[in-house]
């Protein structure tokens, strides 16, 4: 997009309303950073963070997690696998070292929370109660060690129980982030809505594998990893569409969004806001580029707000 286009966008921007409200919290625009793909310091070296609607942090757990050994990244056709394994310094370090810096920026702050048991999730969300965090995103794709490693998000009852408990311990609005590795996403969505989730984010990565046939081993040390990027977009759009028609709570849609038009696709499918993940690893400025492309699209077709896009599907 040339500079001229951008200027045009900004001048027209004045009569556009990009705001969206999720669980009573207003985002200036629907562009958020997907968990695990953003660093305020490093991403901030490429663009103005205040352009974002919200920052969704990488997953934080009650105690520090080491993550998996490397290689943790593998490229696939039109996508990538990661097995970072949710490496993070733990909630105390996050609150002390990272949160104050995040709070120097304007966008809403959504903290992504991970755990290995319901107790771990609850202890972590409790610690965030008296912080200046706006919202929580509960990553329920994690394996539950008490139940033999089955993902909380893959089981309707477990997902419901986790939502109920987290809801009890948290004073903040909670978004449940669903895994696509299930046979019926709408069942899980309904279960978390019934237990008091304030919103839903979807999708997390799809479980995948890549084999290096020359060396006869998997590329990732962890053998399997989460598939993300444009390769998963059709799955994500379909799931947002299905979930929109199953629940009433707001949806943050993500999975392979590379352009403003991709973002529009999610909005039309029924998302209230979107997150940019893998695209930002490939083009560090992707979130702001996608935002200006979204504005360009709205101007071209005369949309004045996001509601109109969401309701435009025939």
């Amino acid at each position: 997009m040339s500079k001229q286009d951008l200027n045009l966008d900004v001048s027209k921007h004045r009569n556009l309303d990009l705001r969206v409200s999720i669980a009573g919290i207003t985002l200036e625009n629907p562009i958020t950073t997907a968990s695990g793909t953003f660093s305020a310091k490093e991403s901030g070296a490429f663009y103005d963070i205040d352009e974002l609607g919200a920052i969704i942090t990488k997953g934080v757990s009650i105690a520090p997690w080491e993550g998996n050994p490397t290689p943790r990244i593998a490229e696939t056709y039109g996508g990538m696998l990661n097995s970072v394994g949710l490496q993070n310094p733990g909630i105390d370090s996050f609150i002390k070292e990272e949160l104050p810096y995040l709070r120097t920026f304007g966008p809403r702050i959504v903290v992504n929370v991970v755990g290995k048991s319901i107790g771990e999730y609850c202890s972590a969300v409790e610690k965030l109660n008296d912080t200046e965090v706006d919202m929580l995103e509960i990553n329920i794709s994690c394996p539950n060690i008490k139940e033999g490693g089955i993902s909380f998000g893959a089981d309707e009852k477990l997902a419901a129980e986790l939502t109920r408990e987290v809801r009890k311990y948290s004073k903040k609005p909670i978004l449940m982030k669903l895994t696509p590795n299930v046979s019926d996403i709408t069942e899980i969505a309904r279960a978390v809505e019934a237990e008091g989730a304030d919103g839903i984010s979807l999708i997390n990565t799809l479980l995948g594998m890549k084999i290096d046939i020359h060396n006869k081993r998997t590329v990732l040390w962890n053998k399997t990893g989460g598939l993300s990027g444009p390769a998963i977009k059709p799955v994500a759009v379909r799931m947002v569409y299905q979930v929109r028609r199953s629940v009433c709570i707001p949806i943050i849609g993500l999975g392979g969004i590379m352009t403003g038009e991709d973002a529009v696709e999610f909005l039309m499918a029924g998302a209230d806001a979107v997150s940019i993940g893998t695209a930002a690893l490939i083009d560090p400025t992707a979130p702001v580029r996608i935002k200006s492309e979204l504005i360009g699209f709205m101007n071209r077709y005369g949309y004045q707000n996001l509601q109109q896009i969401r309701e435009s599907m025939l």
Partner: protein
Amino acid sequence: MTKKIIEAQVISNQKIAEGIFRITLDCAAAADATESFNAKPGQFINLYPRDKSMLLPRPISICFTERNRITLVYRVVGNGTRELSCHKEGDGLQISTPLGQGYHIEAMFEAINQDPSDHKTIALVAGGLGIPPMLELAKTIRTQIGEDRRIKLIAFLGFQEKAFLIEELSSFCHEVHVATEKGDFGFHGTVLELMEMQNIVVDYYFSCGPKPMLKALAAHCHRIEKPLQVSLEERMGCGYGACVGCTCKTKEEKDGLMRVTPKKVCKDGPVFFGEEVIWSE
């Protein structure tokens, strides 16, 4: 903004040995970025393939810089580097401005000046595609040494078969020693065997190359109590510190205690002190 993705222009792209290419890029487009192309030796850039089925950037070390021009030397190993080898003069290429922490040259000069004995030797020890970043490093160190005859810069280079960049390195180093594993050129063996045979007293080591070589050199430097800086390689996602894909374990002293600290190769490295890296993996 201090970092940018820019469109660089290919000035030349030539084969310099079997499967090895040298590409020179005009990065004038970065000149208006705050950090411009002020690259430090040991830093790398991200190259973004044109074929969008290849999503991830390819990290390549900066081999040489001259005003707004940078030169990279790369081996064709897969689709990304193959695409790169097909670029012609005048083609545009998406790259990042320099990334990561380069070699700590001030730390080296401080260390060797601490002890008042007169003559000092700095060694660059590199193997294979670890050799390209040594050129910018050699240039920078040699410029700082200037006419000071007490400091000697020598390079130990290891190749599999065909050697490259020897002439260029010779113009900045006082001595260049070469080993090839197949014996095509110079010493027949590895670069570490070559070093052992030469038996030159070295006061400070800089290195880049395959991990087993770095690990062995780190053990050697630990034994003889000489400082070492190494440049590590890791599979990367973003290359700029956002994804935590490229972690490496280091030892760090915090509140008087030695602690294992995960660091990002792309952002905290690729250059680390030999003593700080935990090699056992």
